[in-house]
C-alpha cells in the first residue's frame, strides 16, 4: 500500500462556487485513516459544502479531491462512505424497516432483511420498526438515519450537524455509536456548532471561515475540566474569537 492511500481524504486547493457565489476557496486538507476530525465554523462558512464534496454529492469547481487515494469518484468510492445529515435521507412513507432494507439492498448486502432488523435493534428502534417514518419523532428518525449510514460499514463517516434537533438522550446514543465507529477504525468527519459534543469525539479540530480553513489544531483529551477537554475548549474558543473577530469589527 502506498503512502497516499493512508489518507481517507486528500483535498488540494479545493474550491467550489455556486454560480457566482464562491463557497469554498483553496481548501487544502488531509485526513488520515481512522482519524476523527471536527470542523467548526460560523453559518455560511462552507462547512456543509465541504462535507457534500467529500460525500461525492457535489463536484468541486477547482482543485483536486482524492478519496482513499483515488480521484475517480464512482460507485466503488461511494460504497465506502456513510453520511448523516440533518435530513434523514429516508422515505417518509416507508416504515423504518423497509427503509433500512432498501438501503441494505442498495449497498449490496447479502441478507438485507436480517441486517435491517439487527441495525434497528442496535439503534433502539425495534419497537417502531413497522411504523412509517412519517409518524416517528425527530430523534427516532435521526437514529434511523445513523443506522442507514453505518449499515454498509463505511470506512468514512461524514456527519453534518448530527445533533441538531435531538434531545439529550438521543444525542448521547448518537455519541456512543460514533465512538464505537471510531474504535472500529473508521474515519469520522463531523461538522457542527456543538462545541462540547464535537470536541468529545475529535482527535483534531479545525475552523472553517469564509470558505477557508482558518485554524487547525489537535484536540488534547485527558486535560482539565470534568470531561478532560478544558484545554482544548479554551484553545478553540480563543481561536474562534480571533478568526471571526474582523467580521464583528
Amino acid at each position, binding site marked *: 500500500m502506498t503512502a497516499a492511500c493512508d489518507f481517507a481524504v486528500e483535498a488540494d486547493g479545493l474550491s467550489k*462556487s*455556486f*454560480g*457566482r457565489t*464562491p463557497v469554498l476557496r483553496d481548501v487544502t486538507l488531509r485526513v488520515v485513516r481512522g482519524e476523527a476530525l471536527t470542523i467548526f465554523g460560523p453559518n455560511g462558512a462552507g462547512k456543509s459544502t465541504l462535507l457534500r464534496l467529500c460525500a461525492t454529492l457535489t463536484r468541486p469547481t477547482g482543485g483536486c479531491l482524492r478519496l482513499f487515494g483515488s480521484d475517480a469518484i464512482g460507485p466503488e468510492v461511494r460504497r465506502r462512505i456513510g453520511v448523516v445529515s440533518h435530513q434523514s435521507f429516508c422515505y417518509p412513507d416507508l416504515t423504518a424497516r423497509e427503509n433500512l432494507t432498501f438501503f441494505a439492498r442498495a449497498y449490496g448486502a447479502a441478507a438485507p432483511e436480517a441486517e435491517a432488523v439487527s441495525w434497528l435493534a442496535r439503534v433502539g428502534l425495534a419497537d417502531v420498526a413497522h411504523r412509517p417514518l412519517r409518524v416517528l419523532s425527530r430523534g427516532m428518525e435521526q437514529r434511523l438515519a445513523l443506522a442507514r449510514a453505518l449499515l454498509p460499514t463505511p470506512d468514512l463517516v461524514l456527519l453534518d450537524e448530527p445533533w441538531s434537533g435531538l434531545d439529550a438522550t438521543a444525542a448521547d446514543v448518537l455519541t456512543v455509536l460514533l465512538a464505537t465507529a471510531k474504535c472500529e477504525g473508521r474515519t469520522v468527519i463531523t461538522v457542527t456548532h456543538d462545541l462540547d459534543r464535537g470536541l468529545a469525539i475529535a482527535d483534531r479540530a479545525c475552523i472553517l471561515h469564509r470558505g477557508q480553513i482558518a485554524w487547525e489544531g489537535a484536540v488534547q483529551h485527558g486535560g482539565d475540566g470534568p470531561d478532560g477537554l478544558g484545554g482544548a475548549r479554551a484553545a478553540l474558543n480563543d481561536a474562534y474569537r480571533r478568526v471571526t473577530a474582523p467580521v464583528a469589527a
Partner: protein
Amino acid sequence: MTVRTRLAPIAEHVLPYAATLTMLGALWCVFIYAPDERMQGPVQRIFYFHVNCAWSAFLGFFVAAGASGLFLWRGRPAYDHLAQAGVQVGMLFCTMVLVTGPIWARPIWGTWWTWDPRLTMTVILWTIFAVYLLLRATAHDDPEIARYGAVLALVGVLDIPLIMVSVRLWRGMHPSVISAPEGKGGLEDPRMITTLLVTLAAFLLLVAWLLWRRYETLRLHDEIHNIEDRFTEVAA
C-alpha cells in the same frame, strides 16, 4: 482560450467588413442580377433569404448542440457561452424563416400558413429552442442551469431527425388542402444558382460574426461579474 485569442483578430477586423460586403453583393444579386422566375415572378426572390435563414438556423442549433456536448464532457464555461450563442443566433434565423415563409406562401400557395412538413418542423424546432431560452431566463440564478440547458440542446437536436420523419409521414397520410407546386429547388437559370451561392456566403459570414459577438458578450458578462465579485470581496 488560445483558440479565442487566435480567432479574435480575424473575427474583430475581418468578419464584420466581409459580412457587410458580401451582404451588399448578395442584395445586388438578388434584386438586380438574378432573373425573374417564370412561374412565380419577383416573389420568388425571397427564396434566397428564406432558404439561407433556414440553413443558418440549423447551423446555429447544431453549433449549440456540439458546444453543449463539449460542455458536458469538459465543463469549460466557454463551451456553454458558445452553446447559448448558437441557440440565440439559431432562434433569430428560425424566426426569420417563419416570417419569410408565410410572406412567400401567401401569393404562391394562397394562404399564410399551411401544414407543409418543412414549415411544421420549423415551428416545432422553434418551440424547442424557445423553451431553451425560457429555461435559461427563468432559472438564470441556478448554478446548474448551464448543464440543464446543455442536456436540453442535445436532446432537442437528437429529436430533429425524428420530427422530420414523423412530420413527413403525417402529411403524407392526410390529403393536402393545397396542392403545392414545387416552387423551391427549380432553379432553371445559372444566374439563380450563382445568386444562391453568393447569398449563402453572405449568410455564413453573418452567422459567424453574430456568433462571435454573442459569444464575446456572454464571456465579458461573466468576466464583469467575476471582477465585481472580487471587488466586493476585497471591500469586505
